């Protein structure tokens, strides 16, 4: 089963548990130098120059027929970075092996974020994992899409009152398709990927651009829960 409505919270509001009500008096919070540069303040001095400090920008669109052709091509070449954050990740193994064999649909698993364009999050997300998720997501090259598998990634699932599990992954990175279930059967995951293909072909899987546009909102949310930020503000 697939959640059809993609829940993009477009206005950069503070989330429900906002206890500080954001007393940032200066125009830029400490991680923004100006409109286009980030401070990378979490890094130690000797690492500052190893990383780029530019902000991500939304991708420019070409002429619509060309864009349609590109979308068709993108939809048929999905390389998956599967991040087994929780138990749901176990469903990827039947998916890539002979029974469900996703390579017949033009998909294949990849070992590193640099080679993948679909990020599959399998299960609950703890704070420690969220940090890796943000880093991997940002390292992926565009155009990139996110599929969140499992109830835990959608609303916390059975970790709804856990002290260390975030309940809505779409507050931290943009999600294109959700697959519900605890855990979802491989058929459900396949249906999710089919849905993702439809969205891409229709030009509606715009998570990457959304992330660039609402960068401040996403960063604020991430920084609120990741208290020891010791990586670049955007991982190019």
């Amino acid at each position, binding site marked *: 089963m697939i959640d059809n409505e993609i829940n993009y919270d477009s206005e950069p509001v503070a989330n429900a548990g906002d206890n500080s009500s954001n007393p940032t008096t200066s125009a830029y919070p400490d991680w923004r130098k100006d409109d286009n540069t980030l401070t990378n303040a979490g890094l130690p001095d000797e690492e500052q120059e190893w990383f780029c400090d530019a902000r991500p920008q939304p991708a420019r669109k070409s002429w619509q027929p060309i864009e349609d052709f590109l979308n068709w091509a993108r939809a048929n070449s999905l390389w998956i970075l599967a991040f087994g954050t929780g138990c749901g990740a176990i469903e990827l193994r039947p998916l890539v092996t002979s029974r469900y064999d996703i390579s017949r649909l033009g998909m294949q698993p990849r070992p590193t974020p640099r080679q993948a364009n679909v990020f599959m999050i399998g299960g609950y997300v703890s704070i420690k994992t969220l940090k890796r998720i943000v880093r991997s997501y940002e390292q992926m090259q565009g155009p990139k899409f996110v599929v969140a598998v499992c109830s835990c990634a959608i609303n916390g699932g059975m970790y709804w009152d856990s002290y260390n599990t975030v*309940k809505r992954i779409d507050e931290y990175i943009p999600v294109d398709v959700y697959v519900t279930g605890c855990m979802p059967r491989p058929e459900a995951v396949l249906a999710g990927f089919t849905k993702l293909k439809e969205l891409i072909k229709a030009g509606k899987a715009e998570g990457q651009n959304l992330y660039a546009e609402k960068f401040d909102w996403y960063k604020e949310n991430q920084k609120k829960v990741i208290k020891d930020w010791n990586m670049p503000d955007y991982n190019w």
Partner: protein
Amino acid sequence: MEQLYNNLSLQFELNDFMLRHGTQASFIAKREQLVSLLTNLRDIHGYTHLVMVTCVDWLEDKLFQLTYIVHNHHDQSDIIVKVLIDRDMPEMDSIHHLWEQGRVFQRELHEMFGISFPGSPGQDEPMILEGWQGPPPMRRDFDTKEYCEANYSNRERDSREPEEHMQRKLYPED
């Protein structure tokens, strides 16, 4: 097992002996004697395998109960040694010199219960809770739900009867 317990009682102050399944003995030891007791069990009685170190929070009695489980591979028996320590001043002797893996358990106990083991390597580095700022989360007076509500936001739930929903979805004309 009883004989072993009686022998050990001559040397150490033990009480609350209990035997289960014939091979699983448990008793309470004194805090100061624990390291020498475990050394004794390991080197003389063949309990060479540290199975785990864990903790129980007796909030009402203001005590932490540390539980050490050791295993003997020759007769497949286990000994569970319990130690009660003060909850307000949680400090315990480290056993990482007896078993290398002891430091992992101790690091976890330090993180989850705030018990300190002076001298245990790496115990101040975060293990699971990176950047954690609240109180140790496994203590019973830590309110998980409250912490969760203050820090992570909810998604509204929208529940449907599965049978009806699928019926409507699959056969919309009926």
